[in-house]
């Protein structure tokens, strides 16, 4: 079973790479700065949020480099929202193609998540620039040995997003309303994820509710490494791997069960 899945996967890697590079070419066609936008965009976005929250609302975090705090959360949430959104629309958007040629359908959401993922890797460059060059004597972050664990959190984020992308794209076939509903959910999600504030400013009850948000754990994982130079707790590891695997597998099952019906709704 696994062997068959892998063989099938291998057969279509070329198509997948073609689709990812297509997205890249189309995205930056006719923009003067091109791929530089992948670096600039999160930087500028962060600058706006930094001004709003640290200057206007006077957010303070003792002993923490606020810019890095903001940026670690922002790059991950940005990945999540963009990838899940484009994965969601990928099936319906490719109906004309699906109607003519046989292509395994999982390729569409997966290639979108990969494409945004490459963009995400580019946004890590400005993140590291900020880690290295900002903060005063007390709050300066240093690169440490635990950085080797960072890919784990990003992998969990990826699996979680792919799984959710499968679920959303399946729903979108039968219920186009999901495009709007999920847009609202994303807005809510952004405020309910501690990106620009710390979870400890909330009441203990509310904190428990926030604990159910997988994104919080992925972000928290990277923050304990980048900001506090510590190994993430066992608890943190388990939450990351548990939520991401659960959503990924659940998404795969839903998608597999329903994919043969997609074509009738095209």
């Amino acid at each position, binding site marked *: 079973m696994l062997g068959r899945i892998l063989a099938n996967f291998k057969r279509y890697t*070329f*198509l997948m790479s*073609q*689709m990812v590079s*297509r997205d890249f*070419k*189309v995205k930056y*066609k006719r923009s003067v700065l091109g791929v530089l936008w992948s670096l600039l965009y999160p930087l500028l976005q962060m600058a706006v949020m930094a001004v709003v929250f640290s200057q206007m609302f006077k957010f303070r975090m003792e002993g923490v480099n606020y810019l890095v705090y903001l940026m670690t959360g922002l790059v991950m949430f940005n990945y999540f929202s963009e990838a899940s959104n484009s994965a969601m629309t990928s099936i319906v958007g490719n109906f*004309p*193609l*699906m*109607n*003519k*040629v*046989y*292509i395994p359908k999982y390729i569409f959401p997966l290639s979108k998540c990969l494409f945004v993922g490459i963009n995400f890797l580019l946004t890590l460059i400005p993140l590291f620039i900020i880690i290295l060059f900002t903060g005063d004597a007390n709050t300066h972050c240093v690169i440490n040995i635990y950085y080797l664990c960072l890919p784990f959190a990003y992998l969990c984020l990826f699996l979680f997003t792919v799984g959710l992308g499968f679920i959303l794209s399946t729903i979108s076939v039968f219920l186009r309303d999901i495009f709007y509903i999920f847009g609202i959910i994303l807005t809510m999600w952004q405020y309910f994820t501690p990106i620009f504030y710390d979870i400890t400013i909330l009441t203990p009850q509310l904190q428990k509710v926030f604990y159910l948000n997988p994104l919080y754990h992925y972000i928290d994982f990277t923050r304990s490494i980048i900001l506090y130079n510590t190994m993430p707790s066992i608890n943190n590891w388990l939450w990351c791997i548990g939520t991401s695997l659960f959503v990924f597998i659940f998404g795969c099952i839903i998608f597999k069960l329903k994919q*043969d019906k997609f*074509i*009738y*709704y095209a």
Partner: protein
Amino acid sequence: MITVDKVSMKFDLGMEKNFSFKQAFINILSFKKRKKKEYFMALNNVSFNVKKGEVVGLIGSNGAGKSTILKIVSGVMKPTKGKVEVNGVVSPMIELGAGFDLELTARENIYLNGAVMGYSKKFLEEKFDEIVEFSELKDFLDVPVKNFSSGMVAKLAFSIATIVDPEILIVDEILSVGDIKFQEKSKNKMLEMIKGGTTVLFVSHSLEQIKELCTRVIWLEHGEIVKIGDTETICNEYYKKQLG
């Protein structure tokens, strides 16, 4: 090579209805008894098989289920009932240029569309020059396809689609695209592919082409097989039934 066993294909015509709150609301207010779901049997208990090297033609009036059969054999659709077994790689020549991205250049599209058709990277790199040559678009390789005329797009698509030596070829009408010169060239290329000893499933409304190419014919009507058999006899019968 291709075995189609008791295949039925049911389309739910009610699918579009009751799909929005507005419609649901109207239905509640109108107190009408909800109609039983309407179905349309695109195929009803169809069985046939195609041996290696055979060229089988499908004939029948519009809506008889010919294209549905092609879609089932090429894997685009799964049948509601029954089994389809296909041994070999299918090259569907149903609609060309399905995988084009108009923003990309011709060069980029050759790779993208080739990947959509299931070709490998190595194969495409080897055949790249041949594709370009056949398409007669050498000077426009780095122009975005959106700036192409429709004839040029068709030429490019045709050249990519027909570069393979397919195991199983699925053809929905012989395509002749582009200008007169290219029409002749593309038609010959397709005839060459069909006659080349591969297994072919061929849909056409031109009885002459069917008679010329097919070793066997399946006559479909309303999703059911009317007759299978010798090309000459069935074509004549079909012609009489339709116009006599």
